[in-house]
């Protein structure tokens, strides 16, 4: 018969129409701002900088080595290296980024910066609501906006963060061990020197670098 297909189709759409009022399962739409789908653990979109401790300025892991900046395919990272050094989490003196900008309008979320970072300082975020009414400034994130705590990292990617923390702890343990050894060796050397040539004193007065003592003066000297 002519038109039986039309009637079948009309019945199908009518079933959908009434079914969507009866059966909530049919409406698969997630009404976004109010409802959200749970994010899977591997979710990633834009990079952020991890810091340890409470103060983000002190605790940034980044040592501004520029590796991520060079590896970034769309060149969305801009780093300005500091002239002075600050002690890092284990007390070793390191450079730090005076400026660390990521242009999220350029970033393509490839995660290469995360993979090349030797210090586990840059990780991928899950925050995606980055819209702004300022298309230049609003999308260029500075380091104050990029810095997020290690606890936050644990919250968004628990497994990955635990692995990173374990590796870091191991490394830091090694580092501390090394420092201890170095300090011991230096002390021994100094003692030996002092014993060998007590007349040439100034060398013995150079102290073993102690955390947080020397940076200010050296910075001043350099700026001068």
């Amino acid at each position, binding site marked *: *018969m*002519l*038109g039986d297909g*039309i009637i079948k*189709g*009309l019945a*199908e*759409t*009518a079933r*959908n*129409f009434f*079914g*969507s*009022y009866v059966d909530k399962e*049919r*409406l*698969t*739409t997630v*009404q976004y701002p109010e409802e959200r789908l749970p994010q899977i653990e591997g979710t990633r979109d834009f990079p952020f900088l991890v810091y340890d401790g409470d103060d983000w300025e002190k605790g940034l892991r980044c040592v501004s080595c520029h590796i991520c900046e060079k590896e970034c395919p769309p060149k969305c990272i801009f780093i300005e290296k500091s002239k002075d050094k600050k002690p890092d989490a284990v007390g070793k003196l390191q450079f730090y980024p005076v400026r660390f900008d990521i242009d999220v309008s350029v970033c393509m979320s490839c995660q290469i910066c995360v993979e090349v970072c030797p210090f586990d300082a840059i990780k991928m975020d899950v925050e995606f609501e980055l819209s702004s009414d300022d298309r230049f400034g609003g999308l260029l994130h500075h380091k104050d906006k990029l810095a997020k705590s290690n606890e936050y990292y644990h919250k968004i990617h628990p497994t990955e963060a635990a692995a990173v923390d374990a590796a870091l702890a191991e490394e830091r343990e090694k580092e501390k061990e090394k420092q201890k050894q170095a300090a011991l060796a230096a002390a021994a050397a100094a003692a030996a020197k002092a014993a060998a040539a007590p007349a040439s004193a100034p060398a013995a007065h150079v102290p073993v670098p102690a955390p947080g003592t020397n940076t200010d003066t050296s910075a001043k000297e350099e700026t001068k």
Partner: protein
Amino acid sequence: MPEMIDQIFVLLKQWIMGYVPSGLQPLCSAILSVLPILVVFPLLFAITTVLERKGLGRMQNRYGPNRAGPWGILQPAADGIKSLTKEDIVPRSADHLVHLLAPILIVIASFLVYSVVPVGRNMVVVDLNAGVLFFFAIGSMVELAVFMAGWSSRSKYSLLGAMRAIAQMISYEMPMVLSGVVAIMAAGSLSTVTIVNMQAGYTGIWPHWYLFTPWGITGYILFMIAATAESNRCPFDMPEGESEIIAGYFIEYSGFKFALFFVAEYLGMMASSAMAITLFLGGWAAPFSFLTWIPSWFWFFAKLILMLMVFIWIRGTLPRLRMDQLMNFGWKFMLPLSLINIVSAGLWHYLPSGFTRWSVISLLLLLSCFLLSRNLRRNKWFQERTYRFAS
């Protein structure tokens, strides 16, 4: 009291006219008749757009618009503000005057049609002697507006869209007129008011609508199919097929001019529905004799909204036809069937009333429908299509 409510708008107009000086009476009467049309039908258009989007959404298991206002009912207002504040772009090489006139003409034509539609008892702007003819004549002006829009835009897509639209409208105007003829024959008048009055009686509780005769229902279905094609609605929306020619004849229009085309499309759809109601569904007459206490204008608008829902339902169901399918269907099925329908309506008049009349006419129509559809199905010439320039 029911009569009072039924005639409330007529009485209101008479009451206002009582306060108007006699010199201004003709003008004031015209304004008072036209103004409700200009208010009610655009309002109905706004309701239809939101109904359509919600309904289509539900048919596709979506929510549809639900952000503007509660349940999205303010969506038309948001759309209106958006189209009013958008930039009006006219292509540099366009024919500026014709480009400007096309949307104006199409909206004027769409509104003019309503002047002969009786929306209630004693509620019609003008009771023309040739009302149905007026409807079809004004409807044919839409084609010219479509051509003006497509040609003046100076875009190949708009020109193609206009060609398709005009070819389609001309092809389906004929079955539309011819399927309407049966109602004119039965009523013996071209006046819409007379046609409705002829259908206003009841046998028992059943009304004398032309729908409840074999030729009536055939004519109604043919009329509605042709009306769908005339108003460029799905499944006959090739003139604006998004995937093929982007938006058809109004591709180069933006801002409020685009909105005018949109309004005109829906007004055309409502006008066709209103005419189908007038010709076959008894106009403002109540569907059962015991429901006549409900005002006539309520019945008209109830029927109109029901018809619009059917339009939406069809749009949510059927895919777009191909041009050759459209033409084959129009010329090889609709036109012969509407001609046979006219003959059967004539026969109906001369056969003795009763079961014989019913069975003979039904048999005639069913047989011809079956034969024509078999013919339509056998002609699968499109499978032999060869692409001469493809190899």
